[in-house]
């Protein structure tokens, strides 16, 4: 994400089910391609999303975002569309892991749905956890993440992070 990011907010509700969001099925499961999966991104809740969402947009949600069984195709579809960050009141444990591992900046904050509305312009600083709603002026503060997880996301996710660590570390296989 870099230092600060500004993007448009797409607001969804509570308990967004990750499988339902991409109408996950045996057919969808066949590919892991980002561009193919982008076509399914959030369609279960808003069918026009892949057409209307732009690279750099931000998803905003209530509690338990991306709940349910969750397959990796969900996080891949978000990367495919180019979603830059997700702000939610809480994340499902599986997406908390998959999202961060895929390099998606996740902001967990209170009363998100009261403070951010559809189309608002949001400025984000991931390392500091600051959320600034430029449209309304309201500020929110995300629960802090450990440094290494912030480093991991800013490296682009688990894979680039491990690649850097292993090529740069004097020890053969450093622990994260």
């Amino acid at each position: 994400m870099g230092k600060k990011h500004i993007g448009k907010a797409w607001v969804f509700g509570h308990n967004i089910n990750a499988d339902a969001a991409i109408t996950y099925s045996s057919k969808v499961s066949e590919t892991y391609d980002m561009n193919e999966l982008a076509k399914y991104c959030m369609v279960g809740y808003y069918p026009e999303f892949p057409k209307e969402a732009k690279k750099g947009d931000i998803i905003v949600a209530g509690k338990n975002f991306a709940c349910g069984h969750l397959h990796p195709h969900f996080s891949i579809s978000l990367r495919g569309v180019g979603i830059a960050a997700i702000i939610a009141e809480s994340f499902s444990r599986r997406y908390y892991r998959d999202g961060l591992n895929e390099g998606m900046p996740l902001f967990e904050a209170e009363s998100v749905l009261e403070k951010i509305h559809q189309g608002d312009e949001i400025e984000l600083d991931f390392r500091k956890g600051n959320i600034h709603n430029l449209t309304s002026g309201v500020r929110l503060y995300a629960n802090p993440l450990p440094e290494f997880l912030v480093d991991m996301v800013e490296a682009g996710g688990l894979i680039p992070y491990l690649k850097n660590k292993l090529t740069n570390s004097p020890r053969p296989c450093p622990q994260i």
Partner: protein
Amino acid sequence: MGKTISEKIIARAAGKKEVFPGEIVTVKPDITVCHEYFIAKRYVKMLKEIGIEKIRNPDATAVVIEHRVPAPNEDFAGRHKGAREFVKNHNIKYFYDLGRCGIGHHFMAEKGHARPGILYAADDNHATSFGALGCIAAGYGMSIIEIFATGRFWLKVPGSIRIEVSGKFPEGVTSRDLMQKILSDLGAGGALYKVLEFRGPTIEAMSIDSRLVMCNMVLHAGAKTGIVNPDEKTVQYSRKRAEQPFDAMTSDPDAHYDAVYEYNVSSLEPMVAAPHDPVNTKSIAQVKGVRVDQAFIGTCAGGHLESMEIAARILKGKKVHPNTRLIIVPTTPEVYLGMAQQGLLEIFIEAGAVIGPPSCGPCSGGHMGVLGAGEICIATSTLNLKGRMGSAESEIYLASAATVAASAVRGEITDPRENYYS
């Protein structure tokens, strides 16, 4: 203050004296289990990108070929081939191929890999089943790569919710119905990031199979995992099967729980999850009479020997309804053998059911009973999201083996407590 079993196990895996809910630690899993479908298309590429030629911990890694077996199409044939090559290239110690493998989320208990006191890491989510044996087990997705590269992975320590269960199940009502009721009360996020710790006389009286079912379904309430404190039953089960030693840790009497919920099953009714969400719970009275085209007994949430015994009691001497198909898929070869030895196969065949090889079966809509448009299925499987078993125009109801068997006979959703249960 005392600690919960979950806090104790995670502390041990983290190499720390103690851990606290909410903190993020790195843990070393005792066993890492890959279910075959991600290996060829994801892991191989990822490891190459990082520059890993040999995974860190092949002696504590297992690969199971069980999701779609035998390979139903070229895509899966490729995935299986890739998995076999991966096992060979990395010298993975534990490998179970077709004919010598069952659904990972049961089979790994039979093989003693899931056992009390350990940290069990899988890629697939329903690994939570193994909490039944008093270990911390869950699916961790891409973190498997972190384990392959470094031997450890990051984990947020969960709080615990205690679920106290007492009372005796009425005839026709099972652990599956109890779990559905609990999911209904908690809702999709009611146990977010918590461990559901099941306790009480009803849990103690439950078979290992029933405990596996309880712990399997917890993720639908957002839980990290489920767990049952190991008792004599658990220790006996694992002692017969585990090669490695194990430490049957239990919760301290003064451990802290974020909430305590009490259940009494004496007046519990059969419960059903209606389309298209596992927490969309109805009592049997609300859904009985719905036409059933396909009935399925199987999966890590209902294909154990105990489920087969319950189904056989209902199907004995009866026939599957002429407008309905009944598909039965045992979880493992051991279960399949048990069915053969107890004469259950004969009961099922004579009833007109079809029996499939130990595997996930039609659960994920790939083969062995794909649903067409307009069809309705009742199943003991794990999920009923729209299109899960085939057409987006089909519907899936989830229920206990008793309810599914009774419904297969009537051709419509049926209360197993009625005269079909003898």
